Every structure is written in structure tokens, then in C-alpha cells.
């Protein structure tokens, strides 16, 4: 096995990693780059805690080789915040009590953001479908759906100053 040089772009910043090619994207993000907002849950493509975006599409980073993300724009939960301000979806999660233990939240929010990017005005059913790949073991789904709905309805839109 030869270690390989990998250039990754995470949240707009470029990183050069020298890694074993079996390194998973979640390991590159957490263990090599040090962005630990992305969680490692089931490790079997089931729970969605490790959800990040690759070129705007949500994927489970526990089941993507880091090498496969070369040249792509990766967005993690840390990348949603702009200039020290939380993204609307993050504020909505806080307001609606959508965090209980909080473990699913980073993945849940990335799925929610990917949904809203694609469909800015989802129905409740579309919201539920949008987070189908994310499990909340506190079962706080209703508050999560309410937070996404409130964001879609523009209640957390940035006030332009």
C-alpha cells in the first residue's frame, strides 16, 4: 500500500493530505482535517449522522473514499455558518428544540439544507422524504420537520443590513 497525496476542498478551503487510500471521507474530515462537527455513527450507510455535501448533493461520508472526493467542493456543518452567523436552518433548529442529544443534528441539517437548495418550498411530506436517510434516535422528528418548514417559509431569512 502506497500513501497518496490528496487535495480536498472543504468549506471553500483547500487541504493537502497524505493518506492511506482506504481513508474514508469522514475520517479525512474529522481525523486529518480536524472538523469534528460531522459525526461518525453507524458506519454502515444507515444513520446519516455523517452526511456532508459533495458538490451540493448530500452523501454519507462514512461510505465514500476520501480519494473519490478529490476535486469536488465538500461542505460540512461548519461550512454553513457565514461570518460568525449561524445559517437560517441552524437558527431554526435551535428555536424549535430540534436538538436533543444533538448527535444526528449535523447530518440532519446537511440533509435539510440539501433539500431546501433543491426544493425551496417543500411540503411536509417532501420534508419527511428529504430526511429519510437520517435517523434521530431521540425520535425528535416532529420538531426537526417544524424547523425545516419554518426555514422554508422564510421565518429565518437573513435581514439584509
Amino acid at each position, binding site marked *: 500500500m502506497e500513501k497518496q497525496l490528496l487535495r480536498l476542498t472543504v468549506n471553500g478551503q483547500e487541504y493537502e493530505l497524505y493518506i*492511506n487510500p482506504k481513508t474514508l471521507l469522514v475520517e479525512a474530515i474529522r481525523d486529518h482535517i480536524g472538523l469534528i462537527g460531522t459525526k461518525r455513527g453507524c458506519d454502515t450507510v444507515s444513520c446519516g449522522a455523517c452526511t456532508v455535501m459533495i458538490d451540493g*448533493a448530500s452523501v*454519507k461520508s462514512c461510505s465514500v*473514499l476520501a480519494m*473519490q472526493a478529490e476535486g469536488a467542493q465538500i461542505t460540512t456543518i461548519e461550512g454553513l455558518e457565514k461570518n460568525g452567523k449561524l445559517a437560517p436552518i441552524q437558527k431554526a433548529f435551535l428555536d424549535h428544540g430540534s436538538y436533543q442529544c444533538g448527535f444526528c443534528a449535523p447530518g440532519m441539517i446537511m440533509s435539510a439544507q440539501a433539500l431546501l437548495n433543491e426544493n425551496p418550498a417543500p411540503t411536509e411530506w417532501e420534508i419527511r422524504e428529504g430526511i429519510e436517510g437520517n435517523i434521530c434516535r431521540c425520535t425528535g422528528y416532529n420538531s426537526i420537520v417544524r424547523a425545516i418548514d419554518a426555514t422554508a417559509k422564510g421565518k429565518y431569512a437573513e435581514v439584509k443590513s
Partner: protein
Amino acid sequence: MINDFNYLKPGTLEEAFAMYAEHDDCKVICGGQSLLIVMRQGMIAPEYLLDIKHIKELNYIKFDKKDGLKIGATTIHRAIEKSDVIKKNYPVLVAMENKLASIQVRNWGTIGGNIAHADPAGDPAPVLIALKASVKFGGAAGEKTMPLEDFFVDYFETALSKGELVLEIQVPVPEPKTGAAYQKFNLLESDMGVVAAAASVTLNGNGKCKDARIVLGNAGPTPRRIKRAEELLAGKVLNEKLFAEAGKIASEDCEPVADIHASEEHRRHILGVLTKRMLQKAFDEAKA
């Protein structure tokens, strides 16, 4: 824990063929949504991993009224789900993709990878076989095309020889008055099916059944056509009683395993029910 491997990343299909032919103990990864799981479990530990995910030559959806649908192997599930041309001409494929795992998996996993992995619980194969699909595969030595139903040999085994890749899925244009349906039975929405059934029905001008296909998923080592039930329906005026009889045959002519999710008996029962329902649904669509 994934075993160490050497990572090969060809830039073109030609390079991929050459690399695959050159390296023994080499496994192909595309989306890896199934492969990385079995690698993590230590079930396979290849020395080389050939990554074809980025090969653009195999990423396409084409359709014309004569040749039908052609989907390149590295096309992601989500692209199939969102394709207008597939929605219009093969709505059952969109419905199947919509229930395949979760959005994240469909955003990265590919149709070629799914077919090559040959998991008997995979969603696309039963539907594609019901639609009379073929698969094109090959390597440096050349290409061949065969009906998809002949491609699956055993659990996780296919007709692929050393150095060969799945290249394209081909689906003919459905005949007029054809309907198709697919449903899986599972406990969690984004889980694999405990069992599944796909059916297609084509009617003659006189309303009798010209042709029917019944394909079961996770009902044996490979996707399984229930030819005895298909023959029962051919040439007949279809009705609920015939569908129930076909369902009974389906529950007899399968060989599902028993595991933590369901006993063999339970699986046979559900396969019978799903077969009956899918035939009815396909028939209703064919009549419409």
C-alpha cells in the same frame, strides 16, 4: 476495519480496461455504497481497488423511440430518479429508484455498481428484468450484451469475467398497452427489501394478455422469474382470480432464505401477496 489496498484511478475507460487486465486480485469500486460495507466487514480484501466512479464516458441517460433507453454504468441512482425522459416512458423505474435506500445513497451509488454487486435484494434488477432489459459489459478483449436475467449467476456472482466491467443498461421501448409495477416489503423505509416483486403486463388489442413477466427480488440467489405463473397468464382474459393463482405459484416457485428479518414461510407468503398485487397494478396500468 478495511484492509489496506492500492488505489488505481484511471482517467478513461480504455485506461480502466488496461489497469483491470494488468492487476490480479483487483476489485472495481464505483459508488461503493455496498462494496465499502463488505470491505469493512472483512468479507473481501482486494490488493487493488480500481475506481471508475469518475469515468464520464459511462455517465449518461439516452432515449430514443426506436432503441429505447440506455443508461451508462456510472450514472447515479438520483439521476435516474430525476430523469424526465425516464419518468415519461418508464415510470416504474422512477418509482423504484425513489424507494432505493436513501437520498444520500442515491446521490453517490450507481446503477452499474448495483448490478455488478449482484445482491439478490437489490431493487433495480427485478424491475429491469420485468422491462426486458439487457446489460452490456466488456473489457480490453471486447464487449458483449446479454439479457439481464442471464447476467446473475449466484449470490453476488455475475457473468462478468476477469477484466470486464458493466458498461450499460439497455431497456427496450415498452410495447403499447403495457403496464409495470414494483414493490418491496421492508420494515424501515430506507432498508433493503425483505422480499420484492416486479410485474409487467402487455395486453393484446382484444384485451387478452399478450405477455406477462413476474420477477421476484430476494427470493433466491438471483432475481427470479416465475415462468410457470407467466405461462398461466399468457393468452387469457386477466382477472383477480388468475392473479391470486399466479401469486400462489410465485410463493411455491421461489427459494427465499430465512434470516433475522423474516422466516422462509413468511417470505413465501409475502411474495405471493406482492405478486398478486403487482400483477393487478400492472394490469390496471396496461388497460388505462
